[in-house]
Each structure stands twice: as structure tokens, then as C-alpha cells.
């Protein structure tokens, strides 16, 4: 273990002014937190998958088995699909906003009025 405070130093800021994306510094950092947590959930899911696979194969488990685990091609594919599905789920809102740009839709109140009168 090094004498360097590796936890603190891992998060060093890159030199250069950070762009203002969202127009609100609090929203900006809420997004940073959210995405970092989203990443950690993905990590937990992958770890759980490893545990399940090792238990399935060996019936027992040691922590070093988890560290040494290397998925074969089929397992790697299945795990990457799991992550892809997870990413698609958490980004659903953006994907649906994207789709709504393709559709010219009236507000529901207008449709409601239209249906009432026709």
C-alpha cells in the first residue's frame, strides 16, 4: 500500500475550466453523483453475477475466486447484455425525449377536448 493518499488523489480535478452544461451548478453536480452511483450499481450487479456463477460451478466461494474470475465468451456476452440492458433502462428518459422529437404530438388536453367534441 502506498504512502500516497490514493483515495483523495484518485479524484484529482483536471486543469481547465469545466463547461457549464445545465445552467445550474447544483443540477450539474447532482448529475455527477447520480451517474457515479449508477456506475456503482452496475458494479454490484456484475459482482453478484460473478458470485452466482461461481456458486453454480463450485458450490462454495472465496473472495479470491471473485477477484480471479474471468468470464468465458458466453458469460462475457451475457454479462455485457445485462449491463447494456441496465444502461438502456436508466437512460430511458433521454431515449424517450429523443423519440418525442420525431413525433409532432398535441398536448393531451387538446386531444381530450377533441374527443369530447367529436
Amino acid at each position, binding site marked *: *500500500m*502506498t504512502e*500516497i493518499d*490514493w*483515495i483523495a*488523489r*484518485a*479524484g*484529482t*480535478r*483536471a*486543469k*481547465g475550466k*469545466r*463547461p457549464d*452544461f*445545465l*445552467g445550474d451548478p447544483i443540477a*450539474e453536480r447532482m*448529475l*455527477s453523483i447520480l*451517474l*457515479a452511483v*449508477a*456506475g456503482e450499481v*452496475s*458494479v454490484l450487479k*456484475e*459482482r453478484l453475477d*460473478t458470485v452466482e456463477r461461481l456458486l453454480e460451478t463450485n458450490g462454495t466461494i472465496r473472495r479470491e475466486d*471473485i*477477484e480471479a*474470475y*474471468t*468470464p468465458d*465468451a458466453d458469460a*462475457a*456476452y451475457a*454479462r*455485457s*447484455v445485462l*449491463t*447494456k440492458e*441496465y*444502461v*438502456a433502462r436508466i*437512460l430511458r428518459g*433521454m*431515449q424517450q*425525449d*429523443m423519440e418525442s*422529437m*420525431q413525433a409532432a404530438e398535441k398536448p393531451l388536453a387538446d386531444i381530450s377536448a377533441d374527443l369530447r367534441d367529436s
Partner: protein
Amino acid sequence: MKQDVPPPYTAVTQHAMFPKPSHDEAARYNFLANFNKHMSGTLGAGNKLAYETRVLPAFRAEQGRDPQDRFEVRHAMNRDPWHRLWSACRRNAMEMRQQNGRSIVLRQLDELDALAQHFNAGRDTLALNPDVAVPRYQAAVDIHCMPGSYHGEERPGDVSAGANYDSGLFATTGGQLGALNDGGGQALVEWIRRERPDWSPRRILDLGATIGHNIVPLAQAFPDAEVIAIDTAAPVLRYGHARAQALGVHNIRFVQMDAEHMGAFPDGHFDWVQTTMYLHELSGKSLPAIIREGVRVLAPGGLMFHLEQPQYSDDMPLYEQFLRDWDAFNNNEPFWSAMHALDLKQIMAEAGLPRDCQFVTGVRAVADRSIFPDAPAPDEEDYGRTAKWNAYGAWKPAA
């Protein structure tokens, strides 16, 4: 249906110098590879939709004309909420990649530095020179949000910058560069074998080599060649030299040197002068100066070859230019935009490589495609990171 997904981080070759990831550290990169792919692929299309359905119509309504350049497109797009959120997500992914990589590297820095010492001590193939200053274009900001850039050290003499760079290339490119992140270098080998099957360069010079990942394949392809890899940053050279040694490649000399000042090399010394994804990290004055120096040290009949993302041209739609510019303004690539608008052919001509000796060719990363994905289709292209380049080259006229 078969899903298009990135390979696992465990497919990356853990050579002896490579920072060893824990299970969860690898999983973090797996998340980022998937996240980045989703952002550029599935959601990347949203930027164009926003542009076509509302940003461009609003611009026309306001200005009574179309945008004139990529900067006007950017200013207009930066007001669009969808694009702003997309950009914010992408920026965060870049920052997370750096945090993840630094975390992996710094917790094992003692081991990595000891290994580097083992591979580097007493070798004449590593020549560091503390008198080489960090160029202004490198000191201005930390390039692609990499804290400390290539020259940063956590303690004097360490390899943290190089190790972090090697560790995370996979996450940013989704594995397109292959097991050793050397798809660019492999592509150079494939290209020259096809172009000049009987040619054996005696001396090869790589400018801005960083960790040498793109020059190692050339050194392996030409084991009798004397290869020199220069960079201004000692930490990446220390790591790169150790990495090459760990891979059993001994014919590369890693030298700390500024490519603007290569007085140590006589005129016409090299048969091949190479840069790989380097020119965009320079500056308006240093780029032509470095190309001039490169031409000076290039032998008559020798090859100069620059691998880069495609240059902007009048034929390239402004929207594509704008998207290709994303890294310039959002990922600390301050010369990216200006560089891609330069007339490289004219600069090379002025440096002594006449236009009739020049060529431009497309090059794709070479990797084991049974494991690692090829560059995506144009509509899913991750501009700036796709492992598909344009090569701007020239054969120097014989004297």
C-alpha cells in the same frame, strides 16, 4: 437477436507492467464502455434530431439564414436541453474514467513503480532529460480531462500518468483498439505491408509516442530497425519503456525530447517519421514547426505518416464538424478544432514534401475482431474516438 455489446475488460492483455484491476474496478470500466456506447450509438442520434427538428428551424427563424460555420451550430446546440444533458453525461463519463483509472493505479503505485524500476534501471533504451520543458500547448489544460496530463507525477519519477492512460483506453474506445490498445499501430503495419511489401526501414521515429502503444507493433514488424520514440513527458516514457520491455520489445529507444528541437538527429537520419493521434494535441505554431523538423530528419525517399481523425473540409456537413468538435470544447482538447480545419497538405508542402509526393488514405484499427469490436457504422460513429482514421502521408522526394 444478437446484441451488439462491448467485450469485457478482462479481454484486455494484462502485460507485466499493466495496472492490475480488481473485480470491481474492471466492472467499472465495463459500465463505462457500455454507457459510452449507448451515448454515442443509441442516444447519439438524438443530437441530430434536436438539430434538425428544432435547433436549425429556430436558428433560421431568428437569423433568416443557415449557420455559417460549426461554431454557430455549437452555440445554437448549446441552448438545446437535450444536447446539454447529453453533453453533461458524456463529460461525466470522461471524468469517471479518469477517477476509475487513477484509483486503480494509485493504490498500487508502489508495485508499478518498482516494476518500472526493474524494467528500466540501467537500460540505455530509456533516455530522460529533465531539461526538456513541458510545452505550452501541454501545460495550458489537462488534455482530455486527464488530471496531470501526460507529464503529471504523484511523486518524482513515477509512472502514474502512463499507467492510468494505458488502463483506461479500453473504456473510452469500447475496446475498438484491441487487447493491447495498439489497433492504430497494428494498422500501420498492415498498411505498409500492403503498400510496400519489400520495404524495410532502417530507422523509425515516433513523435509524441506517450506509452509507445502504437510504435511497439512497428518495432515488432521490423525487428532489425532502430526505433526511436520521443515525447516531452517523462512519466509516460518511463511507463512506455517498461511496457515495451515487458512485451519483449527491445529495439525501441524512448527519449525525452521536444519534437520542435530534434537537433540531436542529423538531417535525413530516419526512413520513417510517424505520428499517431498526435497533431491535434499541439498548437498553431508548434505543428508546422514539428512537421518541418520531421521533414528535416527524414531521409530522401523516406515516409512521413500522420494518423488522425479526418480533417474538416467544405464537403463535410457543418453538423458533423460540430459533433466532431465536441471534445475540443467539452473534453479539454483545445487545439482539436483548429487543427482539424488546417490545410495539412499545404503545411507539409511548405515543409518540403511537395503535393505530388503526398497521399491521404483511410486506415482502420486492426485487432482480433472475434473479441474486439470494429469501428461502428457511420450513423453510430463516436466522433473523435472511433478507431478509424485518415492518414496524411508523403514519400519524401529522393535527393
